[in-house]
């Protein structure tokens, strides 16, 4: 059942806004929802029957994700064909004939566009109608409210197909890896159940047709992350980390809620017959065409940025991600490196029209997103230096790389960012799983005290880790190089490196990117040295991990080597043109729901300079660790657990910097201590005290007062006046009659006196009034 709420197929519409989507296309594309369905079913299966299965449910999870992977590959192939060969009818968006806000400016920065789809708006809708890159959309009604159907469904295009591939692949490898890594765990079955649920949620997220569905999946991956970080919840630090992750993400989700809401009504305001729309395609299309006020888009984009910052670990909401390493390592590889944390990046890419217009990415030299990305990448890289825990190094590295992606999106280098997401998934997963492999052997994550010299004992892990590190550092020709280089080119900074194009001149971002490149190379060198070189500082007899761990490592390492080749830059003379920018061609939408961005072309000079920067960073670290530290360690005969004469002991400035880094820029203190502690402690107590003493107190006091006034009236009026008179007269009446007499004489007299007095007073009042 395909519902067209406000979107109606109207092939030759003059008034409609082209969306760049179709309800046709190959069966696999239209039914991509099957891919998340499989792990969802396996979640239920494992949940209810997992413990009774021979392999405790793992086989079900692997089978489901495996089939999902095959389907994802087939879907990908279908997309390749669809991208080049499909010429179907395009869906158009009917737009209300309301007067659009006159001074909307979506014009000037399109002028310099050299892209094939430079045009925008209604004027060239015919052009779009015959376009071959229509995304496939297929929806059903989810619920109806206010007479409007809210749908759920799939939006399949290059981006989602790419994500399907990455998620299913990494998930499959992590599943296989986990059977060994968490084998014999006390909650083995639960672990796989949550892996399945996570896969299902993540896959739902990437094929979301609308922002509401995105939001739902967004939170679901969050809760899976929560459950898996806190997998060993018996220990408080683990559950603390899980809580921290969830709560930090909730802070960002506030932004998502608000942003989605603003977009919903903003889009609704220009569509006829509806009051809102969640549709991603419609939202983007409306934003691209300047039908929405810039303010609305700016506010929405800013709110959504908050969500990105929490989910994708951007400064200053990144603090949960290192703590999230409390979870099992495969989880870190899957969720906190390759897939979930890139959800924020994915969302920007998905709603790029909104961000592009809202943050005025085109033609400027700085914006919120680029700045956040730039700062994050530096913060992450700098913090990665001071970690002893190998996973934390990788976690900060992930933050840094995510910053890279956000920076890229912020400067308009959409394809570069998405490509970096793609390559990063492989080499970072490889590194995480490698670190897990090492930790599995030494039963610790502490590089300084428990590792060292692992290259001999664990050759496979060592080699794959080196490959991953080189890819991460960005040395050619491994994957990281290509994607990083495209990002640097995309900044459009300076231009003196010979690169061309770009959406603006983001010189600052180029500088940040360069510095990060150097830092990345340096901290990875440190990490590799501490882990694999020097003397073994741990205990016991270590040996290489089993095949279920090594095989995924090699597959990922292989991808880390070749993934970069999918998007060789234009003008790269060594390969034929048909091999250039394949990734960009298939992944980047060319449609009404995608803004018109300009593409930068990298240059040899930029590539060479960035490579030199990387080598420079690596060399400095190499000199320090492989030469100086190694020598010192040998000389003192001690392990390098605490270097006797490191720079921090020599230079006060270095010590200060080290302290700041060690305290993670004091952000944790601010969040946990001041904000959370303050809310949970003084603020909550204050509110509760207010509740008990003021509000409830008032209620109680009203009650008490009523009762007391009852007492008062009874004691002072009913008894005292009356009885008082009685007693007085009783005392006066000379003992004579005793009790009965007292009653006879005194009390009744006073009663009668009251009766008469009251009647007289009442009469008096009334006579005066009437």
């Amino acid at each position, binding site marked *: 059942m395909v519902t067209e709420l406000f979107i109606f197929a109207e092939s030759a519409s003059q008034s409609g806004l082209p969306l760049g989507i179709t309800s046709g296309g190959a069966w696999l594309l239209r039914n991509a929802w099957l891919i998340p369905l499989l792990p969802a079913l396996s979640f239920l299966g494992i949940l209810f029957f997992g413990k009774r299965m021979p392999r405790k449910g793992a086989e079900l999870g692997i089978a489901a994700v495996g089939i999902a992977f095959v389907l994802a590959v087939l879907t990908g192939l279908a997309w390749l064909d669809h991208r080049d060969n499909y010429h179907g009818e395009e869906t158009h968006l009917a737009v209300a004939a309301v007067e659009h806000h006159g001074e909307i400016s979506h014009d000037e920065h399109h002028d310099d566009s050299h892209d094939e789809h430079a045009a925008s708006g209604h004027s060239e809708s015919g052009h779009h109608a015959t376009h071959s890159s229509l995304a496939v959309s297929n929806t059903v009604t989810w619920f109806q409210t206010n007479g409007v159907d809210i749908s759920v469904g799939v939006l399949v295009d290059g981006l989602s197909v790419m994500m399907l591939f990455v998620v299913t692949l990494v998930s499959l490898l992590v599943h296989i890896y986990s059977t060994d890594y968490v084998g014999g765990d006390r909650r083995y079955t639960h672990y796989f159940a949550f892996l399945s649920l996570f896969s299902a949620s993540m896959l739902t997220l990437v094929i979301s047709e609308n922002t509401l569905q995105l939001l739902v999946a967004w939170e679901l991956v969050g809760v899976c992350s929560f459950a898996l970080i806190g997998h060993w919840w018996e220990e408080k630090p683990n559950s603390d980390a899980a809580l921290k992750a969830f709560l930090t993400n909730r802070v960002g989700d506030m932004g998502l809620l608000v942003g989605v809401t603003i977009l919903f009504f903003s889009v609704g305001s220009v569509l006829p017959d509806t009051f809102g729309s969640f549709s991603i395609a419609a939202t983007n299309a409306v934003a691209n065409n300047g039908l929405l006020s810039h303010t609305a888009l700016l506010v929405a984009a800013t709110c959504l940025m908050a969500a990105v910052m929490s989910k994708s670990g951007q400064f200053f909401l990144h603090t949960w991600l290192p703590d999230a390493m409390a979870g099992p390592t495969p989880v870190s590889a899957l969720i906190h490196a390759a897939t979930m944390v890139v959800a924020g990046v994915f969302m920007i890419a998905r709603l790029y029209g909104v961000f592009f217009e809202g943050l005025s990415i085109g033609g400027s030299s700085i914006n919120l997103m680029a700045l956040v990305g730039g700062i994050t990448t530096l913060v992450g890289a700098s913090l990665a230096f001071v970690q002893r825990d190998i996973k934390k190094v990788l976690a900060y590295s992930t933050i840094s790389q995510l910053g890279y992606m956000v920076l890229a999106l912020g400067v308009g280098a959409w394809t570069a960012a998405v490509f970096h997401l793609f390559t990063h998934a492989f080499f970072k997963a490889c590194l995480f799983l490698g670190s897990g492999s090492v930790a599995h052997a030494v039963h610790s994550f502490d590089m300084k005290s428990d590792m060292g010299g692992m290259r001999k004992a664990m050759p496979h892990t060592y080699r794959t880790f080196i490959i991953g590190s080189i890819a991460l550092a960005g040395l050619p020709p491994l994957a990281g190089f290509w994607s990083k280089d495209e990002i640097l080119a995309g900044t459009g900074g300076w231009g003196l490196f010979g690169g061309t194009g770009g959406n603006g001149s983001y010189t600052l971002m180029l500088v940040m990117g360069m510095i990060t490149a150097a830092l990345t190379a340096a901290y990875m060198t440190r990490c590799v040295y501490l882990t694999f070189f020097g003397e073994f500082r741990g205990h016991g007899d270590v040996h290489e991990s089993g095949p279920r761990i090594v095989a995924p490592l090699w597959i990922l390492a292989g991808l880390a080597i070749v993934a970069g080749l999918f998007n060789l830059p234009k003008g790269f003379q060594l390969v034929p043109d048909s091999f250039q920018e394949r990734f960009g061609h298939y992944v980047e939408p060319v449609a009404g729901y995608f803004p018109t961005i300009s593409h930068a072309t990298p240059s040899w000079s930029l590539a060479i300079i960035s490579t030199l920067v990387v080598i420079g960073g690596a060399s400095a670290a190499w000199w320090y660790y492989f030469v100086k530290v190694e020598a010192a360690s040998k000389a003192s005969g001690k392990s390098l657990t605490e270097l006797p004469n490191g720079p921090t002991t020599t230079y006060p400035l270095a010590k200060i910097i080290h302290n700041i880094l060690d305290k993670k820029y004091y952000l944790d203190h601010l969040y946990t201590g001041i904000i959370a502690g303050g809310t949970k402690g003084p603020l909550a107590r204050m509110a509760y005290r207010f509740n008990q003493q003021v509000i409830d107190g008032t209620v109680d006091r009203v*009650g008490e007062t*009523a*009762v007391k*006034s*009852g*007492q008062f*009236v*009874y004691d002072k009026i*009913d008894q005292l006046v*009356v009885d008082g008179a009685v007693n007085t007269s009783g005392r006066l009446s000379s003992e004579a009659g005793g*009790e*009965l007499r007292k*009653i*006879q004489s005194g*009390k*009744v007299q006073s*009663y*009668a006196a*009251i*009766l*008469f007095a*009251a*009647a007289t007073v*009442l*009469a008096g009042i*009334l*006579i005066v*009034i*009437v």
Partner: protein
Amino acid sequence: MTTQLLTLAFERPAIDWHAVAPELTLLAVGCLITLIDIIFLEKARPYTATLAGLGVLATAIPIITLAMDGVDRVLFDGAYVVDDFALFTKAIFLISGYVVILLSTNYVAEGDYWENEYYGLLLASLMGMVMMSSSRDLISIFVALELLSIPAYLMVAWRKRDARSNEAGLKYYLMGVFASAVMLYGMSLLFGVSGSTQLSEISNFLTNGTVSSVSAITLAIVFVVAGFAFKVSAAPFHTWAPDVYEGAPTPVTAFLSVASKTAGFIALLQLIYVGFHNQSDVYEPLIWILAAASMTFGNLVALKQTNIVRMMAYSGVAQTGFILAPLAVAGHAGLEDQALSAVLTYLAIYAAMNLGAFAVIITLSRKTGSAEIESFNGAFRYAPAMTVSMAFFLFSLAGIPPLGGWFAKFEVFSVLASSDDVWGYALAVIAAINSVIALYYYASVARRMWADEAPENDLTPVSTTSSLVSALAICAIVTLAFGVVPQIVGRFADVTLLTLGG
């Protein structure tokens, strides 16, 4: 008093025997009981209560026939009227009286009190009440009032070996006399100003006649109303009630709190609707004050009572306030009938629920031997049915649906809310708040009986008697029926007094 009655009869005006048949029946039964007592002495004791009960039931027959006849009968030049209003209120009296007899049966017999006289007096008092329903003349009102009051003075002091009972009887008597005196003073003023004792003529005069002194009329109205405010125990004329209620035998207390109070209201209604009709600028503020004061005062003081009978006394004061409330706006155009119907509805429902509450109190006191609220703690453990019934009656008094009381309160609110007048709304809000305060002590008692531990954990069951159970059953069924199908009482209470008054 009897002499006066005989004198009236002696003049032999044209008498509609059918119209006075209820009164005569009661008189006859009363005489019969006295005769039997004289003849058979002690041997008659076991049968008097039954006889009295049957007598009251027999009295209902002429009332039913009169109702079926449906014609308003006017006797003695309008001094005595049998109309729907009179019949309805007579029915209330008789049913209340019957229930009181049921309540008294064992109490009086086991207490070793004089029985035959007791029932004789009860029937006499009842007869005064039945007369009151028809009285539309200052004199007949006064006669009826004394006829119903004097036996009550005696009955209050019936526990002759108990000082408090004697005290109560004496106090009640003296206070009653004072009140009568105040009222008589007011009546004499009325007579002096208007030259007539008949209410409709007083009304005519007050409306059309040349009024010499506004102050005199105001004074008269205030004094007359004050006299009846004593009878209905409205604050600040309620002072006697707690002491008397506590001291009197409990069935008598029940009788006073229901029948005697109703009689006072009947008189008040007749005065206001017939006599002071058009004097609303005088009686409305007066009643407003009485109503607001009674509700608030009664409820507040009831909060602190530890003796359930005293609590019921103060609760009765508060209920009086509620019953008075519609009269505070009764002079508003278009509201007369509605207010009357509200008061009558309330009286009928109040009779059922209040008698029911006393029935439970009497029953439980048989075991606990005390009327302290504490002694009823945990009654749910040993007397669940009693406790549930008590909760029924208490919550009905508080006005919680679907028990009868809600409809009574609803009618009151309904009248006040339709007054379209700030004072009316204000009284409605006061009433609303008061109904919450009232709930506090009603609910407290209910909660103690349900939830608390019985004193000394004494869980021996209470001994009930068939008469108590049937009294209880009557009250419970009526209370519930009035609440679920308020139409029953609504239909009968939908009467008018004005047509005859004019």
